[in-house]
């Protein structure tokens, strides 16, 4: 299985980026997995249609529902052009020009390479169209005003392509791209300020107010509070299986990130992610709930 994937991947990356249809779609599928698009755009439950939307996302700012992004012309992205799709990932702007809420992590996706975004678009366009209507978000004032997002973006959002570190070649760069652009790991694993924007100085050091109100652990290589005790092998195995070095199993949203995402990547890519995490600057921070249950 893994070997087959690796061969597939090597074949895919050896192709020119604008390969023929099928290859482009297969590459897009792989990249969409690495980016975890499916989790937020698919309702919970065994009968949910993938990418047809309806997933409930509880955040401190209100409840959002991932929209339908199958090629349905009315409820999905059937009428979107490639340029409009690229603009959404790059700038967080909807087809009609409205601002998108940053729950859709364009703050990370802005770093996705254009060729990769085109492949993802080709993949989404290849899916069966589902006529599932979208659910309205449930947001309190002032977040219910889309225009307010213009101010938010002006303050908190820096669009821009991924810049590889000049001193790193090979795996760390691939890992950085997978973690920072596609995997958007920092969107969950980083503390947010009052604005709901991630705090760059605390990147990857965890937060007590993660999605669904859960604690998200520190994944910098800090000896006391982070993943310093993990070997590269431990990390690769975890990203494949969800099993922690002590035999416990990860739950919640990370289990989903692994099931739909990192667990379906090639071993080399998991390796690249692991090496990049281990190269981060260690930050001492142990996220904990303010008032744990009475003992």
């Amino acid at each position, binding site marked *: 299985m893994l070997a087959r994937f690796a061969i597939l991947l090597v074949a895919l990356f050896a192709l020119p980026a604008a390969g023929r249809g099928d290859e482009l779609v297969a590459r897009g599928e792989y990249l969409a997995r690495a980016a975890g698009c499916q989790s937020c755009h698919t309702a919970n439950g065994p009968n949910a249609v993938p990418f047809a939307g309806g997933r409930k996302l509880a955040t401190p700012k209100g409840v959002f529902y991932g929209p339908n992004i199958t090629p349905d012309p009315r409820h999905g992205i059937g009428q979107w052009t490639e340029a409009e799709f690229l603009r959404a990932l790059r700038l967080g702007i909807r087809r009609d020009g409205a601002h998108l809420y940053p729950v859709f992590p364009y703050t990370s996706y802005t770093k996705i390479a254009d060729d990769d975004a085109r492949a993802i678009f080709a993949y989404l366009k290849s899916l069966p169209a589902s006529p599932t209507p979208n659910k309205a978000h449930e947001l309190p004032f002032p977040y219910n005003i889309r225009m307010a997002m213009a101010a938010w973006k002006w303050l908190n959002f820096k669009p821009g392509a991924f810049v590889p570190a000049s001193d790193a070649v090979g795996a760390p760069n691939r890992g950085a791209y997978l973690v920072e652009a596609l995997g958007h790991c920092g969107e969950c694993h980083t503390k947010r300020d009052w604005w709901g924007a991630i705090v760059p100085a605390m990147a990857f050091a965890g937060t007590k107010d993660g999605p669904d109100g859960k604690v998200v652990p520190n994944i910098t290589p800090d000896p006391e509070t982070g993943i310093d005790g993990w*070997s590269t092998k*431990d990390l690769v195995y975890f990203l494949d*299986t969800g099993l922690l*070095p*002590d*035999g*416990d199993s990860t*739950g919640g949203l990370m289990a989903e990130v692994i*099931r739909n995402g990192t667990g379906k990547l090639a071993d080399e890519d998991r390796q690249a992610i692991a090496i990049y995490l281990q190269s981060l600057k260690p930050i001492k921070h142990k996220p904990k709930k303010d008032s744990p249950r009475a003992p």
Partner: protein
Amino acid sequence: MKYRQGVMRGVGGAMGNLSAMMKGDVKFGNNHLRANAESLAWLSSLSREAFQENTGTTGPTKSKANIWSSWSDFAGKAQAFEIEASKLAELARAPNPNMAAIGEQMKAVGGTCGACHKDFRE
């Protein structure tokens, strides 16, 4: 409460040993593979009963009270664990265990742990 946590710690111990073998951190014979997989399967068959009676959610516990209010859902998740763990033991019992299949089955078992912890553990 200690008992149910003990069962889970045993489960974690066996799972950790199997993971270490899969990663190649340790190299032991197939007897170790088999014994850990068997003990995981044995313990999995206890998980439902170990939680059946609510022996407390006020001490140092991560059990959520909905275990007992949604008991049939919890019991179903315990059963899924039992089924996947026994498949793993069966693979490990083979004279020449197929390591690739065991690796895949470890994921299936891990999925049942995660599914239950997601809903029923803090």
